[in-house]
């Protein structure tokens, strides 16, 4: 807090000096004294904010947590399922991340944690909802854009994703069977899925009580590449709980999709040395003058 007050005082002082300098300018200068004062004061305030809202690329690393919502969807490729309406199966996102940020805005962000995937399919009296608890491992490649003099930094991100199914549940119902609810097993979904996530977000560096934090909001879409139908479903060799005349062995592919919205909070560390070198060079130049 003391630091911030001192910085503001210094900025105001600098502003006053600059005002005197402007006032001493020749009379034919079109800038009025009032305009000069406003500009200088705004600049000095920016300087003060710049000190509290640090620059993201000043730090090489960051680590933190991500929380959010995944609207799980299922895509069935076989045309015999075309009449099914797809709905979202809400799931949570809880992941830890580590960020390795380069000076030119590109970051490598390995993430690991939990995601709830799944989907809802409905047709006439049939409703089938799957929720799969997954270990989610991804390696995001992120590019941050700089907005001059603003703390906000929008970014785009792509990430190869590896999902490992750990469990889940199946909620099925139709007129004849009523409700069928059971825990998901290895006969209901393939364990491994690989996919790609693409999204965009905005990152905001803040300092709260001298603690530097990265807060970001992100939205994107995840495409699963692997067919999640099991051999048991494709050959109908298991214990079929809804054995009717229109129940058929699974055909085509069942692909996972997900609409992900998340908020993350992390702490930067590993201040970039290049920045210190530049500062030292500037000091030397000033001393020489």
């Amino acid at each position, binding site marked *: 807090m003391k630091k911030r007050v001192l910085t503001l005082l210094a900025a105001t002082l600098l502003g006053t000096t600059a005002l005197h300098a402007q006032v001493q300018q020749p009379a034919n200068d079109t800038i009025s004294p009032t305009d000069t004062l406003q500009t200088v004061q705004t600049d000095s305030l920016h300087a003060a904010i710049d000190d509290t809202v640090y620059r993201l690329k000043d730090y*090489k*690393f960051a680590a933190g947590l991500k929380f959010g919502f995944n609207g799980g969807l299922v895509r*069935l490729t076989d045309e*015999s*399922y075309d*009449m*099914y309406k797809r709905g979202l199966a809400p799931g949570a996102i809880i992941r830890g991340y*580590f960020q*390795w940020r380069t000076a030119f805005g590109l970051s490598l962000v*390995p993430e*690991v944690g939990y995601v709830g995937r799944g989907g809802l*399919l409905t*047709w*006439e*009296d*049939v409703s*089938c909802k799957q929720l799969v608890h997954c*270990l989610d*491992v991804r390696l995001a490649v992120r590019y941050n854009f700089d907005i001059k003099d603003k703390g906000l930094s929008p970014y785009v991100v792509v990430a190869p994703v*590896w999902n*490992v*199914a*750990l*469990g889940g549940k*199946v909620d*099925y119902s*139709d*007129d*004849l069977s009523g409700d*069928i609810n*059971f*825990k*998901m*097993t*290895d*006969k*209901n979904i393939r*364990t*491994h899925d690989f996919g790609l996530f693409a999204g965009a977000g905005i990152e905001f560096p803040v300092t709260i009580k001298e603690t530097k934090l990265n807060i970001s909001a992100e939205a994107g879409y995840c495409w699963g590449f692997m067919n999640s139908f*099991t051999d*048991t*479903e494709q050959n*109908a060799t*298991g*214990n*079929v*709980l*809804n*054995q*009717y*005349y*229109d*129940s*058929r*062995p*699974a055909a085509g592919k069942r692909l996972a999709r997900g609409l992900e919205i998340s908020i993350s909070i992390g702490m930067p560390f*590993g201040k970039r*040395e290049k920045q210190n070198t530049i500062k030292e060079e500037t000091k030397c130049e000033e001393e020489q003058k």
Partner: protein
Amino acid sequence: MVKHSQTTRCLPWLLSCIAFAAVLMAGCMKEGEDIILLPVQNDRIPTSVLSPAEQDSLSQYMEINEGCTPPNIVGIYEVSPVELIHSSEGDYGNFYDFRLHVKSQNGRNLSVYSETQNTVTSESGEAYVIGSDDRFTLYTIEKSVNTTEGWSWETTTIVSGRKTAEGIADIRYAIVMRNKQDDDGHLVAPDSFRVFTDGDGIASVTTEMSR
């Protein structure tokens, strides 16, 4: 600089540990046998219900309709007088009149079917309706048990016709023996079938299952 190199060195280890943990956690998935198969639209009788050979044989004596847009045939119909059109066993005789009850036909064209012959009413079972416009074919598999005689058998019932306001015109009713268990050979042999019709040409709509 030291911090940087330490982090860079730790990162591959960290990633390897995560990958290893993921592989281990893959074993957490429970084992089981229960599955759900998503229902789809049927436009013909599945071969699991009636083999292609059986369908060929039957189609000589009755129309087997196809399509996903059959008429709604919910109602009670009386087949009277019953006439045997064909018996694969070559036996002929007089058969009781019977009534059919189709109810709860839903958007998937699944319905609940039961029939009454003489004084006996069968248990309600699932039936599927296919066809288009006013022509339809209903099929169902019935399991029956005669505890007194110790017999048990499984038959496929197929009903075809044209839905009209008065009932089912050009009705054909077929029964195919799928399998049976009777020691004295009283029941007809598996794969044998009989095809019936209504002597009036129409199975009329009625309100009661019992006479």
